[in-house]
């Protein structure tokens, strides 16, 4: 312990409050933070699924079909659904973080946060629309 933080005759005994185990339940912003941490479990799960999918693809059309049938298991659908919601949550967090990380200036003035975040959402929408279009055409 450094001398400046040591207990001494002239330094009264400090009280240190322990952080409670449920500190994150006190506030929505803290809970959001913990949910983001928890989301890593579901994202990791999705990564495993993706690797299995690639593996099945490599083993030929029959194996892939079998894999697709396995994916229809209700438990897997629910887990994937939760994973998807968490990934959406991450995307929104990142998009809203952009104006904080980049102070964009135009003619000496800082652009409002909305204008910096909006292009993210626009590109997101465009890419999603393109994917939906490709899927519809195929189906």
């Amino acid at each position, binding site marked *: 312990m450094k001398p400046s*933080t040591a207990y001494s005759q002239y330094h*009264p005994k400090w009280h240190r409050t322990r*952080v409670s185990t449920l500190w994150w339940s006190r506030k929505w*912003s803290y809970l959001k933070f913990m949910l983001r941490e928890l989301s890593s479990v579901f994202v990791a799960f999705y990564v495993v699924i993706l690797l299995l999918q690639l593996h099945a693809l490599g083993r030929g059309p029959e194996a892939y079909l079998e894999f697709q049938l396995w994916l229809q298991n209700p438990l897997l659908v629910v887990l994937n659904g939760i994973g998807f919601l968490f990934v959406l949550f991450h995307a929104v967090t990142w998009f809203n*973080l952009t104006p904080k990380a980049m102070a964009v200036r135009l003619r000496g003035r*800082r652009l409002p946060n909305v204008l910096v975040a909006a292009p993210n959402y626009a590109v997101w929408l465009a890419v999603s629309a393109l994917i939906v279009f490709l899927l519809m055409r195929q189906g």
Partner: protein
Amino acid sequence: MAETITIEVARYRPEQEAEPTLQSYEVPFNKDWVVLDALNYIKDHVDGSLSFRWSCRMGVCGSCGMTVNGEPKLTCATFLSHYHPGPIRVEPLRNFPVVRDLVIEMTDFMEKLQSVKPWIVREDDPAPAEGEFLQTPEQLDKYKQFSMCINCMICYAACPVYGLDPQFVGPAAIALAQRYNLDSRDQGKQERMDVLSQHEGIWGCTFVGECTEVCPKNVDPAGAIQQYKLAATQEWFKSFLMPWSKP
């Protein structure tokens, strides 16, 4: 009789108790009183043994930060009427050791603040006789927001990362580092980056964002940290792709 409001104050007297306890006081309910006024009323008229820090009572000195009904606040800017009819619970700032009653130990913050060199660093260090450094209003505008920090430590009390890992340099120190990095007169960016690119520096932050929410001066420490992360990442890529370039 005039209306009163109950203030529950956390008391901790190390010579007589091992744990903080709550003590209730009745104070006059004046609409234009802030929590600090109520504490001063208690100290002057009811119980002179109550200890707390304060100085300017106008949101400039940053001394009177406390936890009011669970939220970190500058007590000089927190009105009683906001909590009417009460009671109002006043506790010391979270995440710091308590010395006595509402007084916290801030050495840790002071050391962290110093570690990021929150002053203008010059390589050439010209003598004052050589004249002043000039700065345009546009250049001032780049860092002005971060310069509003009054070191009140309210962001540290709101930051769960600091609460769980006291090694974390913390919001205000990083915001002030960024304030000097963005200053056109400063040349100390690299020295600060060496301190802040550590895990306990910017990477400890997980973007809870509560520091920005609670800041009484609208400094936006969370923004400063994200800007810093971006700069550190860019620098890393640059040094990775062009190892011969000078940082």
